[in-house]
C-alpha cells in the first residue's frame, strides 16, 4: 500500500518535471524566435551595411579557395587530392563558419565586450541561461552571404568528384553537424578565456590560426599534428572528415572521432559556465 503511494507520488513529480521542462523549452524557443526577428529587423533597417558586410565576409572567406586554385593553376597540388576535392574541404569549412557566425560566434565578442566594460551582470540577472541568451541575442543574418558562397563552391566541387551514395551523404551530414558543434566549443573556450584575459581582441586570432589547419587535407600534415587536430582540438571534423565521408575516403574508425568532438564541446560549455560563475561585477 505504502509502496503504491510512493510510486504514485514519484510519477506525479516526474509528470510535473516533464511539464516544467516542456514549458521551459517552449519559453526558450519563443525567446530565440524573438531574437531572430530582432536580427532580421536590424538587417532590414541597415540594409546597405548588411549587404556590404555580407559581401565582405563572402569575399574574405573565398581567399582560401582562390589560393588553392592558384596553387593548382601553377601545376602544383597536394598529392592524392584533385583541386575539386580540396575545394570541397574548403567549401564545407566556409559553410560551417557561416553557420557559426550566424548562430553562436557572437557569444565570444559580446562576452569579451561585457567583461571589459563590466556589464555582464545585466545579463546574469535575467531569468534565462546566460550562454543561451547571449547566443540568441547575437544571432546575425550577415553570415548568409558567406553560406551561399560556400554552398556555390560546394556544388561546383561536388559536381566534379565521384557521385556520393546516400550513406555517404548521411555520414557527411552527421560529421558536418559535429563539426559545427566543434566550432561552438571553440567559440565558448575563446569567450571563457576573455573572462581572464580581459579586453584582448586578439584571442580569436589564436584560434583562427589553429583552425587554419582544418582547411586543408590532413594528409599533408605530419602525424603529430593530425593527432592534435583530430583529438585534442578536433578541428579536422569541421571540414576534412565531412569531405572525406563524401569522397568515400572514410572508414569505420572515423566514427570514433566523434567522441573527442563531443568532449571538446562539453569542455567548452563547462569552462564557459565555470567562468560565468567566477565573474564578479559592481553594476557596470
Amino acid at each position, binding site marked *: 500500500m505504502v509502496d503504491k503511494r510512493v510510486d504514485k507520488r514519484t510519477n506525479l513529480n516526474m509528470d510535473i518535471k516533464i511539464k516544467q521542462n516542456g514549458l521551459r523549452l517552449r519559453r526558450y524557443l519563443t525567446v530565440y524566435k524573438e531574437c531572430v526577428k530582432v536580427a532580421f529587423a536590424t538587417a532590414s533597417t541597415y540594409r546597405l*551595411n548588411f549587404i*556590404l*558586410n555580407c559581401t*565582405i565576409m563572402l*569575399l*574574405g572567406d573565398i*581567399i582560401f579557395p*582562390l*589560393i588553392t586554385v*592558384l*596553387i593548382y*593553376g*601553377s*601545376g*602544383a*597540388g*597536394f*598529392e592524392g587530392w584533385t583541386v575539386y576535392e580540396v575545394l570541397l574541404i574548403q567549401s564545407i569549412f566556409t559553410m560551417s563558419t557561416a553557420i557559426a557566425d550566424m548562430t553562436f560566434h557572437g557569444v565570444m565578442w559580446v562576452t569579451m565586450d561585457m567583461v571589459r566594460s563590466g556589464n555582464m551582470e545585466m545579463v546574469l540577472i535575467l531569468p534565462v541561461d546566460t550562454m543561451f541568451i547571449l547566443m540568441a541575442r547575437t544571432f546575425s543574418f550577415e553570415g548568409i552571404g558567406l553560406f551561399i558562397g560556400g554552398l556555390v563552391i560546394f556544388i561546383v566541387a561536388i559536381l566534379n568528384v565521384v557521385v556520393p551514395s546516400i550513406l555517404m551523404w548521411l555520414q557527411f551530414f552527421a560529421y558536418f553537424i559535429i563539426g559545427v558543434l566543434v566550432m561552438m566549443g571553440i567559440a565558448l573556450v575563446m569567450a571563457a578565456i576573455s573572462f581572464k*584575459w580581459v*579586453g*584582448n*581582441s*586578439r*584571442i580569436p*586570432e*589564436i584560434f583562427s*590560426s*589553429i583552425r*587554419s*589547419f582544418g582547411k*586543408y587535407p590532413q594528409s*599533408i*600534415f*605530419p602525424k603529430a*599534428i593530425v593527432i592534435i587536430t583530430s583529438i585534442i582540438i578536433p578541428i579536422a571534423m569541421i571540414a576534412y572528415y565531412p569531405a572525406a565521408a563524401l569522397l568515400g575516403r572514410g572508414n569505420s574508425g572515423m566514427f570514433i572521432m566523434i567522441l573527442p568532438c563531443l568532449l571538446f564541446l562539453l569542455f567548452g560549455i563547462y569552462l564557459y559556465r565555470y567562468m560565468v560563475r567566477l565573474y564578479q561585477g559592481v553594476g557596470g
Partner: protein
Amino acid sequence: MKTIKKQLNILWAVAVVTYKEWSAYRTHSMVSILVGPIYFIVQYFIWTAAYGGRTMLNGMDLTQMITYFGASTLIGYLTMDFADWNLQMLIRTGKFLTFALRPIHHRFFAFSQKVGHRVLGLLFEFIPCYIIFTLLFKVSLVPRHMGWTILSVLLAFLMNFYIHYILGMTAFWFTQSSGIRRVFDLLSGVFSGVFIPLVFFPHALQKILFFLPFPYMSYVPVMVFTGNFTLAGIEMDIPIIVGIQALAVCITILISELLYRASMRRFNGVGA
C-alpha cells in the same frame, strides 16, 4: 635646422608616450608569438606538399618560398598600420577638431604614434618570432642585401602609413568608412602577396599590380629580402625595384597631401 630638431623632439615625445601606452597591453602584441609561428607551420606544410617532387614553381624553389613566408610575417610586424582606424574614429566622433586646432600636423602626430607602436612590435613580435623561425624552424632569415632590405622595409613602412592615412581620410566624406577599410584590407591582403606570392597570379594581373600600391607594401620588401625580384615575368635588379618603390611612396605622399588639403576645406566641427 631648428625646425627639424623641433619636429624630431615631437616625434620622439609622441613615440615614447605611444610606446608606454601600448606597453600596458603588451600581451596583445605577444599573441603574435603564438599566431605567427602557427600560420608559418601551416604555410610550411602546404607548400612542402604543393612542391612534392618539383624543384621550382613560378621561378621559386621551396627554400625561397619558405623564406618568403617567414620574411613576409616578420616584415608585416614592422610595417603593420591602423592609422585609418584612428583617423576615421576621430572624424566620426568629432574629436578631430582638437587636432585641427593644435600647432602640429595630425598626419605627423599619427606617424609618430606609429613609430612608437611599431617599436613595441619590434620588441614583442619581430624579435621573438625571428628567434623562433631561425632557431626552432631552422629558416635562414638573413637578407641577401642588408642595406637594400632595410631601405625597402622603411619605404614599405611609409607606404603602409600613407595608404592607411588616405583611407582614414575617406571618413571626411563618408563619416563611416569601415566598409571601405575592410574592402581595402581584403584587397591588400591578396594583392600585396601576404597570402601567396604575386607570381602565382595571371600575367595580365601581375602587370596591373605594378601600378597599384599593394606590391610596395609587402611583396617588394620581401622579395628584396630574398635577393631576387620578379613580377609579370620582369626580373629587376634590387636597386631598380627599390627605386621604383621610392617613387611609388613619393606619389602616395603627394596624393595624401592633396587629399588632406581637400579634406581640411571640407571639415567642420563644433566644440568637441
